[in-house]
């Protein structure tokens, strides 16, 4: 009685399983519609020689949107290179690069001294290159009904974020905004909840531009208790948008309809613009004592030039000057070359709202890119 029934159900089961398998195979076989470029790509119109192989990067998630744009442009010219970028975060990106798991890193901070020593093991005697290829102005965004323009001195900004200034009608804010009427409204300062390069740069700015008010060390993790916290840039923007009286900091491109404060630089109040952000980076000194291909900069936060906007996020591409094999070196050279090109920088600006680097910075970077070689 039991036997035949069991047999029957076994047959049905087999049929069901094979049907499911067939379905899966059919689905698998088709592949992603936009990835079937193949050899007959239209992109091969460019004169550059066609490279092949893998190019793997990992790191800063801030670069993710720009990276997609660069990848699109790069793969148009070099469709045979299998490019991937994993937005694991800057720390993870540097770690993976130094461990040899990736070909280059995207990082919101330059290598520190300890990592530089490790880099010597990873890349050999010729060392690493570090290029500040992704520059983004960090805007101070606010949401305050009836106030369309806001000027802030560094000390005032620091006071707001330390919690010393708690109301919008505070005399310190009024002093920065002569003639404006500021409402009696509590300030909700919003900061990043996650460890981020944006926070590092913002706190670095505060500690350099307003050292007497902001006494904490620059840190990727918000160092003070209290205040509202948002997860990632989008969380901060959402929090500021939602709360009247809120103020926060985020990539300038993400500000949307929110008010953007002008920051006092020297004697003038400067709005975050791509040009002003790129200029401050271009005019900042590189960190002394590093290799000739290491363009890591010490952003001049205390600048007094009104052409410069000092609250910027500088994100690097870090790679070896000398790779073990030629294909890898060529791929890195071609990719970074695309990134620093005018076209590449513009694509990133369109996709991610970054600030295209200046021509001056480009020519410096080009020298570095040309130096990328394979070990003989």
């Amino acid at each position, binding site marked *: 009685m039991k036997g035949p*029934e069991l047999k029957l159900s076994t047959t049905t089961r087999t049929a069901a399983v094979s049907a499911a398998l067939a379905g899966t195979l059919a689905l698998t076989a088709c592949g992603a519609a*936009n990835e079937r470029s193949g050899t007959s790509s239209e992109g091969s119109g460019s004169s550059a020689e066609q490279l092949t192989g893998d190019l793997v990067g990992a790191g800063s998630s801030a670069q*993710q949107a720009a990276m997609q744009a660069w990848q699109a442009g790069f*793969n*148009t010219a070099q469709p045979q290179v299998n490019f991937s970028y*994993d937005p*694991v975060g800057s720390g993870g990106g540097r770690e993976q690069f130094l461990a040899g798991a990736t070909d280059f890193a995207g990082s919101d901070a330059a290598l520190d001294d300890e990592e530089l020593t490790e880099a010597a093991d990873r890349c050999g005697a010729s060392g690493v290159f570090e290029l500040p290829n992704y520059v983004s102005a960090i805007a101070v965004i606010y949401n305050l009904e009836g106030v369309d323009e806001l000027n802030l001195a560094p000390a005032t900004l620091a006071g707001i974020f330390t919690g010393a200034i708690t109301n919008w009608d505070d005399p310190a804010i009024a002093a920065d905004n002569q003639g404006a009427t500021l409402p009696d409204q509590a300030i909700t300062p919003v900061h990043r909840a996650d460890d981020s390069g944006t926070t590092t740069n913002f706190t670095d700015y505060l500690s350099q531009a307003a050292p007497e008010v902001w006494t904490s060390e620059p840190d990727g993790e918000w160092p003070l208790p209290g205040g509202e916290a948002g997860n*990632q840039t989008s969380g901060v923007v959402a929090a500021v948008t939602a709360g009247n009286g809120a103020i926060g900091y985020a990539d300038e491109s993400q500000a949307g309809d929110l008010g953007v404060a002008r920051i006092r630089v020297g004697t003038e109040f400067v709005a975050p613009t791509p040009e002003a952000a790129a200029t401050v980076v271009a005019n900042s000194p590189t960190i002394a004592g590093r290799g000739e291909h290491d363009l890591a900069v010490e952003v001049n936060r205390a600048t007094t030039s009104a052409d410069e906007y000092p609250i910027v996020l500088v994100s690097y591409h870090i790679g070896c000057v000398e790779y073990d094999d030629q294909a890898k070196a060529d791929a890195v050279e071609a990719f970074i070359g695309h990134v620093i090109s005018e076209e590449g920088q513009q694509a990133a600006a369109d996709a991610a709202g970054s600030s295209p680097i200046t021509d001056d910075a480009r020519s410096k970077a080009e020298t570095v890119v040309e130096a990328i070689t394979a070990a003989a």
Partner: protein
Amino acid sequence: MSQTVSPPRTDHPDLPGPVRTRRRLPRYAATGLYLAGLLLGAVLSALSGFNPALTVIYGVAIGTVAVYAASRAVEGTRKATDRLVTCIVVTAFGIAVVPLVWLSYTVLDRGLTRLDGTFFSNSMVGVVGEGGGAYHAIMGTLIITALAAVISVPIGLLTAIYLVEYGSGRLKRAITFFVDVMTGIPSIVAGLFAFALFTLLFGNDVRLGVMGAVALSVLMIPVVVRSSEEVLKLVPNELREASYALGVPKWRTVVKVVLPTAIAGLGTGVTLSIARVVGETAPLLVTVGLITSTNLNPFDGRMATLPVFAYYQLTQPGTATQAFLDRAWTAALVLIILVMALNVVARLISRFFAPQTGR
């Protein structure tokens, strides 16, 4: 208690006088009163500026009070308490349905925008701003989950067989206990474990699809063990005894008699355990990473998965924020559909393959 015992007179014609019959509210009175209360609540909240949440709160409160008061007046305290509890219990169920409906509505409302062919056929390669899809992420999720199932199901099933058919003494108790403990491992800890394990084994900072599968297995195995164990316990001992009586060795008895009898329950359990892990985000975030292109090989490099894809689309938008948000919501919607489908499959399995033993 005795005063509630009110036998109908017709059955006991020899009783001295009519025992006091309890007065009762007419059958639909309670429901009617409750509805009237709801209506009044709506009117009240409409007077003070309409607000859906307040409407419901006022309505439920007034309805409950009305029912309680009426019942108390007519039927007495005990019956009134009973009705009050009924109101509360029904309301509780209603409250639980609110987030379900609300959540489904939100996800459908925002996710349907991008639920199109492109979403299922394209990856994110070369996509800047609008367009693009999650083909790579969907495939990644399917592959990694399948791999996790391939790892977990044999281990989980064998452990369950051990516990039910072989186990005894201290080892059995230890395994039972620690399987229970394992169900409580936080998903992020499982992810960190897989991360450290592979870093240890392969030196470099590897990122492989299979790492994610291992992390998910840590979460999945205990669920498989628990559900399989329950099902195997339900297999009647008569079947085993009959098999032994025919001289069939124990392992063949398990494979040919016990497992086929329990197949429906086992299938359901496994499917539900897959549904449990398919939406896990945190362990995949730290193990498999994310890429924009399609990678179908879980032993070679990073893969995209649906939950991680959704997370990054939400948190790392470019300038075209809305396009990223739309993709995130659609990914969430697809994820829910996937889990629901697995649940339906589980139900179907248990109905379709249910043994005809008349148990």
